[in-house]
């Protein structure tokens, strides 16, 4: 300890000397070197020294270290941006020696640098910068070395909300303080928090060798339950969200099948491959954008959606005209024929684009997520898919129940002969309806390409799921499909939370088998006099 203070005193002296020489870059060469090279412990100690004195040049230097743009030689430290080197000490342009080596940081060093930067930003004049700094520090581990900086920030802070969060940060850093009163105060302050890191911190103090005072242990246990209560909401909402997210994917993959199988009665085993074609179309559109319009890359998805609809619908129409129309009313033959087609399509894609998965990059606005509470992040790509599923559902519903085409489809489904007598071209309606189902499958493929892998086998992993949803929901009912998709999604995710992914899948399948035994017509049965019944 004594040695440390001596050294920091020495460094402070050196810093003062340098400050006189170059006021803008108050970081001397020895100090910069100490932060940049050496073993982890020494580097972090040097960094914390510099933070405690809030050296003006430190922020730039720490940021450069985080960006991996610092190089060192035996004597000098340089910051390199776009092949232009700057001396890290003087800030003057410099020529980079050939033997300069990259400074590499590991997680521990990066964490310390990030903490240091946030510490420096706590006293920034901008409210937003200060808030971001507090956010960062709250997420990380409490660091007693930051206490002086936090204390300074509390003294200056004017925003009441931020001030109370700073107090909590201070408390987190003081939770292991030697003074009992300080510890008690820290625990009481922290019990108002709703942060997972605080929960972890309190819990770790409950370890047998951490907190020995019995009264304080009781306070700790009480604080943990309080924090837990706040965290529980985030967890429950999280399960709900993941369930809805899985449900939206199931809905997308099953909606097309609800039309081809549900309304038309065609057991289409190639449904998955139509999705796969949609996903490959998305990949193709993405490549076109990357090649011809890299600036508009983030918008490729807007074109990929209609493109995947059109391509899959066209393939569907060809299938219907070429094969399926000869097999209406013969379910077994349809099943075999479409299964064969699915193999042909898969092998075709394999020969054309290779057996390996192709790479579909998310548009940049789809990465990351929105933090609703401290322990609940909703990823943008999942939100986008939920919204997309809702839109597709709405459009399909409108088409089936509000348009002339939809009326014809329903008419042909209910009584083909009578519909034909009223002058409906039933074969044309069949083709259009099948193409519509195929097109929706294509759009589902486009959505899947944003969350999963795109390969020739993509359809195989979803075909069972989609039949499950349609059969469970009740054949011929859009509402049933929606309910079944969301129900299965939620059920799957809740079970996954309890039993793990492998067992959850088994339970869901068993549930469906039992359910279909008891109620073969599914959740919703067609009411009224259907032609077949």
């Amino acid at each position, binding site marked *: 300890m004594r040695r440390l203070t001596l050294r920091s005193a020495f460094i402070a002296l050196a810093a003062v000397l340098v400050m006189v020489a170059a006021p803008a870059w108050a970081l001397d060469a020895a100090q910069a070197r100490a932060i940049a090279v050496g073993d*982890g412990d020494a580097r972090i100690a040097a960094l914390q020294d510099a933070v405690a004195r809030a050296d003006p040049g430190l922020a730039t230097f720490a940021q450069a270290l985080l960006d991996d743009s610092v190089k060192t030689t035996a004597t000098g430290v340089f910051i390199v941006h776009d092949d232009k080197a700057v001396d890290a000490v003087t800030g003057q342009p410099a020529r980079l020696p050939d033997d300069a080596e990259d400074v590499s940081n590991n997680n521990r060093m990066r964490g310390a640098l990030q903490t240091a930067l946030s510490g420096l930003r706590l006293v920034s004049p901008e409210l937003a910068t200060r808030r971001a700094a507090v956010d960062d520090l709250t997420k990380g581990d409490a660091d007693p070395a930051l206490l002086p900086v936090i204390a300074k920030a509390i003294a200056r802070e004017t925003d009441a909300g931020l001030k109370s969060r700073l107090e909590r940060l201070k408390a987190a850093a003081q939770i292991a303080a030697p003074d009992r009163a300080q510890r008690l105060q820290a625990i009481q302050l922290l019990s108002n928090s709703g942060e997972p890191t605080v929960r972890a911190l309190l819990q770790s103090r409950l370890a047998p060798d951490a907190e020995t005072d019995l009264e304080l242990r009781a306070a700790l246990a009480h604080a943990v339950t309080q924090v837990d209560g706040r965290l529980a909401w985030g967890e429950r909402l999280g399960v709900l969200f993941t369930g809805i997210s899985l449900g939206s994917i199931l809905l997308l993959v099953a909606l097309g099948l609800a039309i081809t199988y549900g309304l038309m009665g065609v057991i289409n085993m190639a449904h998955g491959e139509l999705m796969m074609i949609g996903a490959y179309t998305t990949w193709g559109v993405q490549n076109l954008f990357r090649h011809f319009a890299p600036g508009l890359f983030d918008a490729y998805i807007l074109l990929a959606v209609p493109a995947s609809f059109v391509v899959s619908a066209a393939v569907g129409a060809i299938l219907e005209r070429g094969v399926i129309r000869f097999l209406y009313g013969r379910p077994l033959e349809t099943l075999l024929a479409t299964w064969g087609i699915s193999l042909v399509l898969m092998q075709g894609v394999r020969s054309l684009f290779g057996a390996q998965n192709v790479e579909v*990059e998310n548009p940049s606005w789809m990465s*990351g997520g929105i933090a609703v509470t401290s322990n609940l992040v909703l990823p943008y790509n999942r939100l986008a898919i939920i919204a997309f599923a809702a839109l597709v559902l709405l459009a399909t519903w409108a088409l089936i129940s509000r348009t002339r085409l939809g009326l014809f489809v329903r008419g042909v489904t209910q009584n083909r002969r009578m519909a034909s007598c009223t002058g409906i071209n039933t074969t044309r309606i069949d083709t259009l309806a099948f193409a519509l189902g195929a097109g929706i499958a294509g759009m589902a493929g486009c959505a899947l390409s944003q969350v999963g892998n795109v*390969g020739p086998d993509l359809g195989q992993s979803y075909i069972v799921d989609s039949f499950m949803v349609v059969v469970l929901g009740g054949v011929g009912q859009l509402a049933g499909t929606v309910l079944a998709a969301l129900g299965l999604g939620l059920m799957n995710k809740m079970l996954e939370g309890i039993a*793990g*992914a492998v067992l959850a899948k088994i339970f869901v399948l068993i549930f469906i088998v039992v359910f279909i035994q008891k109620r073969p017509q599914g959740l919703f049965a067609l009411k009224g006099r259907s032609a077949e019944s």
Partner: protein
Amino acid sequence: MTTSRRSFSLTLGALAAFASLTSMTPAQAADTIKVGILHSLSGTMAISETVLKDTALMTIAEINAKGGVLGKQLEPVVVDPASNWPLFAEKARQLITQDKVAVVFGCWTSVSRKSVLPVFEELNSLLFYPVQYEGEELSKNVFYTGAAPNQQAIPAVEYLMSKDGGSAKRFVLLGTDYVYPRTTNKILRSFLHSRGVKDEDIMEEYTPFGHSDYQSIIAKIKKFASEGKKTAVVSTINGDSNVPFYKELGNQGIKATDVPVVAFSVGEEELRGVDAKPLVGHLAAWNYFMSIKNPTNAAFIKEWSDYAKSANLASKDKPLTNDPMEATYIGIHMWAQAVEKAKSTDTDKVIAAMAGQTFKAPGGFVSTMDPKNHHLHKPVFIGEIKPDGQFNVVWKTPGPIKAQPWSPYIPEDKGKKDEPEKK
């Protein structure tokens, strides 16, 4: 009647003998040596295994350009077992009995290796297996050029527990549901116990092959991490599931400085399709990284880039090398050296000649085949993911270490011999 039947069966025998002679003659007279390549070129493992097929072809071309082995050119026979484990055994049998290959280079997942093992033992043929695995196996017919647990998994967890690795106290063992992750996690659990980590600080989770929805698992990891002390994740997820896993990890904002994830089956190739910026600092443990700087590695990377261009591979614009590729490269070279030494491709003679073979590996060390246990002595590196999808080596062993196929952390292994039983 009896005589005629006997003479008939005699004639049949003679015919059969003649037939087998004629079928053997061309194989022996031919001036090529056939070698089999058994990697999945489709299905969930294609993401990892396809490059190994290309690496094998490149290495064979390199050996052929230098005059081949025993003065003969090597002739590769490539088959696709399509990530289908029973098909691996079928294809292996086909390679050995129909194509009459002298050796097979192949397999990635342990379940595929377990599936072909009886075939190689029955037909007394040779398999070179290039991927890190769980140990607990030692066959006279297999050479393991990947890492055993003590050459990858255990050093990685030791690093996580060290100060520089973040002093982790709680561990999530996350894997795909099959033999490699289950066994590795069994070893790790027992290792963690020996370091004083209790069962309540270990969470084990498995997902099926090809799993693509990691939302609830990531949520579970977050919850587990908030229940006390520093948490780290040890991932043995295999195949293309890694892409959605890492995407979800990035989207959910789990940073390496909070909860580091160390992976045993993720290398440069698996990260190709992933935006690596949110993943900076997450770790991988291997015996080789592309970013290692030394002349042998520079030559290896150049050879691969040139090959990717000349063979017009899909990856030619961004050629990447990784650990199993290095292991494949070492394996084929060592086999060629052993054949030269034994002056024959006969299985037993090559096995004897393999003992103690050395090869200057791109990893920067001389890899030695152990005289007894069929495993390589390898160095261990731990790397952190960089924004460009490469790895920054943050820790390494001072030199190569000897493999322990029978882990001392599994009680049943006590007293097992460090060499194949039937030799």
